[in-house]
């Protein structure tokens, strides 16, 4: 039964993800005075790419084909682990936040290795920057996890979420506020959004994520895009559920699940719209000012832990 619920969650996430990207792109286009390609464009792109042949440069190894699959599977596992719709989890695979973070890191590493495998200057450049950001994000993530786990005494996401559902007052405590702000910055950095990375850039020298996937095409690129988008859904979904724990299904009932699905879609699109609207006003920061941003988010997470000592 739980497995079925999780399968539904993965299905919903996969279905919503291209729409989320579409909404974000369309909103941004409209705010910038462009017509935009429509909300369904990412769906059409993904379908087209998945059907196309991949081109491999001479001498490229099997990693060019394997890394996209690893990325997409790691994203799928994290989508399944994070409580997006309900708090029911499999007994043997608890939604431990440390495990979720590590599973996402598998995807990060697959991307970084893909960038190096291409053997071009841009691939290495993107990979190096990507790993630097990933390395510096790690302290913030784990300290934020720590902050969230202190009040409930476990790192299991469902338990953290359940505590928030039963006692909404904890959501607005300084512990939670600071941790959420820190996590939001982490999500932006990890998914390559502004101000850390510009997903819409066409200039190789400023790229981080795009530089790594420059050599991939067709099916490979399709999986890479889908995998990266799913990461956004997983992380953003986690943050919105922590910030607004309403509507999350407390049991496995059909009605509760359907309500949770609708509520989740609404929250996700709202968060995506806020990010897209904010991106209109943001410029990408210089790469060497990204550590400042991450240090700032780390300090917020750290303060959140410090503050949590006193909330008994």
């Amino acid at each position: 039964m739980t497995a079925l619920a999780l399968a539904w969650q993965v299905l919903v996430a996969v279905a919503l993800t291209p729409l989320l990207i579409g909404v974000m792109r369309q909103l941004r286009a409209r705010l910038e005075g462009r017509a935009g390609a429509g909300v369904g464009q990412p769906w059409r792109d993904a379908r087209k790419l998945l059907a196309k042949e991949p081109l491999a440069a001479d001498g490229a190894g099997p990693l060019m084909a394997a890394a996209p699959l690893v990325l997409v599977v790691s994203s799928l596992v994290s989508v399944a682990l994070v409580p997006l719709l309900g708090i029911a989890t499999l007994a043997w695979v608890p939604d431990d936040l440390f495990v979720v973070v590590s599973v996402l890191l598998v995807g990060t590493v697959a991307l970084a290795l893909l960038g190096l495998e291409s053997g071009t200057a841009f691939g290495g450049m993107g990979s190096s920057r990507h790993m630097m950001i990933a390395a510096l994000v790690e302290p913030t993530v784990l300290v934020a996890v720590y902050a969230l786990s202190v009040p409930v005494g476990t790192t299991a996401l469902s338990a953290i979420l359940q505590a928030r559902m039963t006692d909404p007052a904890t959501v607005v405590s300084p512990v939670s506020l600071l941790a959420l702000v820190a996590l939001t910055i982490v999500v932006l950095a990890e998914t390559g959004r502004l101000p850390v990375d510009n997903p819409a850039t066409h200039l190789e020298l400023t790229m981080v994520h795009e530089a790594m996937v420059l050599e991939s095409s067709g099916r490979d690129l399709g999986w890479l895009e889908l995998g990266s988008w799913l990461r956004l859904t997983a992380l953003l979904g986690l943050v919105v559920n922590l910030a607004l724990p309403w509507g999350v299904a407390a049991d496995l009932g059909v009605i509760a699940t359907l309500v949770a699905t609708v509520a989740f879609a609404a929250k996700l699109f709202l968060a995506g719209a806020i990010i897209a609207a904010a991106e209109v006003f943001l410029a990408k920061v210089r790469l060497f000012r990204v550590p400042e941003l991450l240090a700032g988010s780390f300090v917020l997470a750290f303060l959140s832990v410090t503050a949590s000592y006193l909330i008994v």
Partner: protein
Amino acid sequence: MTLTDLGLLGQPLLAVLAFAAAVAVTDQRRSAVAGTLNAALGLAIALTGIGALLGQPGTLTLGSPIPGIGLLSLAPDRLGGIFLIVVGLVGALSAWFGVGYAHGASATRAAWAAYPIFVWGMAIVPGAGDAVTFLLGWELMALGSTVLLLSEHASRPQVRSAVLWYAAMTHLSFVLLLAGFAVLVGHAGGASWAAIAAQPPTGASASLAFALLAGGFATKAGLVPVHVWLPRAHPEAPSHVSAPMSAAMVKLGVYGLLLLCTRLLPEGPHWWGIGLLLLGGASAVYGILQASVTSDLKRLLAYSTTENLGLMVTGLAVAMLLRTAGQRAVADVALVAVILLVVSHAAFKTVLFLGAGSILHATGERDLDRLGGLARLMPRTATATSIAALAAAALPISSGFVAEWVLLQSLVHGDTRGPGADRVIAIALPITVSLVALTAGLALLTFVKVVGIAFLARARSESAGAAHESPATMTVPLLVGAGLVVALGLVPGWVASGAAYAVGASGVEQVGLGGVALPAVTALLDPVALVLMAVALAVPVAVVTARAARRAPRRTVDLPWGCGGVRVDPMMQYTATSYAEPLVRVFDDALQPTRDLDVTHTTESRYLVRAVAFRQRMVDQVERGLYQPVLGVLEAVGDVGRRAQNGSIQRYLGFSFTALVVVLLVVTW
């Protein structure tokens, strides 16, 4: 006769046999015979360890060479058993690898004769039942490793400086241990662990003994700031020697600390734990930071050893602090994490050093900047080494991930809240979590760099392009080691429950098909289930890919993207140095690199550039700040000493005369 007895008896026999074979067998067959016998010695040690861990008693007593001190005795307990298994398996794999790897200077009579001394010395330390035997094993281990380290001194001048550093630091460690044990033994009136534990010193003398012993063990464990020998000795030793040095020998420093903190002096004041925590945290972050910006593969691995040992000591320190605060259950989890880190690091670091040896054997290079594209030329080495590297980066599903997960679980569950909570812990734990997290992040970058630069893309030098796969005697031990790394990651429950048994910890259980459950902190990790979940989710992805691949197969073109069609040269790839460059910039203040940039212009115009030369040098800042002043003082003292000795016989007679007068004066006082 128990398994432990049998193993203890077999060890000296096999060691003597291996020694004799190294001396007697001809040059052509020495590596094969001596390597095999040494591998057998390793297996005997591992069997002893299994016996000891299972709780089968066993003792071996040898006559003392020094009259009046009593008999030397080996009686491994459970904790020693774990370390015996680690030493034995690492020794066996490395010796096996040595069969194919050792040649020329590293396969001489002296080198192979020193190998069993080194390995058996490492087995005596955790097996010892008293301080004297312990120190004897410690010295045998130091002696054997020094001889092995010297083996390639003729071809590389750096070896000599490395040996000097190593010998000096090893002796520092020995002297500190001798003094520390002297305090303990003097107080207890007996040298056996049981006697010391029954009558531990208190107050200032306990603290003195702790400081001396911890200093000695930290030196062996290569912790900052006494890590300086490690990045010199590990790269210069032959790879089948650096592997046991890094994966087993330094671990005995951790064994010593565990022995000290859990058995000999379990009741210590707060500052012991805080001191160890500072030592461990600084080593972890400093070690991995240096590793992440290093391009020499073996030097990088040596720094990563400092990092891992730092994590282990951090775990131990947290366990001590939590125990002092009365949180025994969480402290037990931290202790289990220490053992898991020991086992996991032993497994992946052996494979990494042996893999580096295999690369060195095939290309003659250990500079990552000159490697590349080896995955195609050396697939078996690349596979094994990559698996180990991903474990070193603590990615699931690997041994490193499980160990780090348990460590983090123990860190976030220390109770820091409420009026009764310990203030020290409340400050220490979040800082420790941050340091461990930063370490984990940098380790990820470091090992992605190792795998990506060495094995992927294209060769950056001719020697790397002409590489060939190493013989089976080298690749099979590598693959076996990599298999162990994966097994430890997939079914960690067995090792975790063994570790819990070894340190007498409760609150660690095995669940499912070998998962770990920590009821004390309500956490569970079942890697097999996680893998099954991933496989289930991978099925639709695989189906879509397979269908699409049938319709639109992969096509090879010969042009990667070079900003509009420039042919891409291997020279244009990122190197290890350029890969770490953003990080060097971020940690500029801590690393203080020296950079030279020479731009040569063409003669026609100074706006046109003909060549750009860039050099970057990293100097260990701890070494520069701490050791160079000390060495300077020593040199100054040496100069004075040299001036005092001008060779004149009168002057020497004068010294003797002065000494005599001084002694007479002192006596009559």
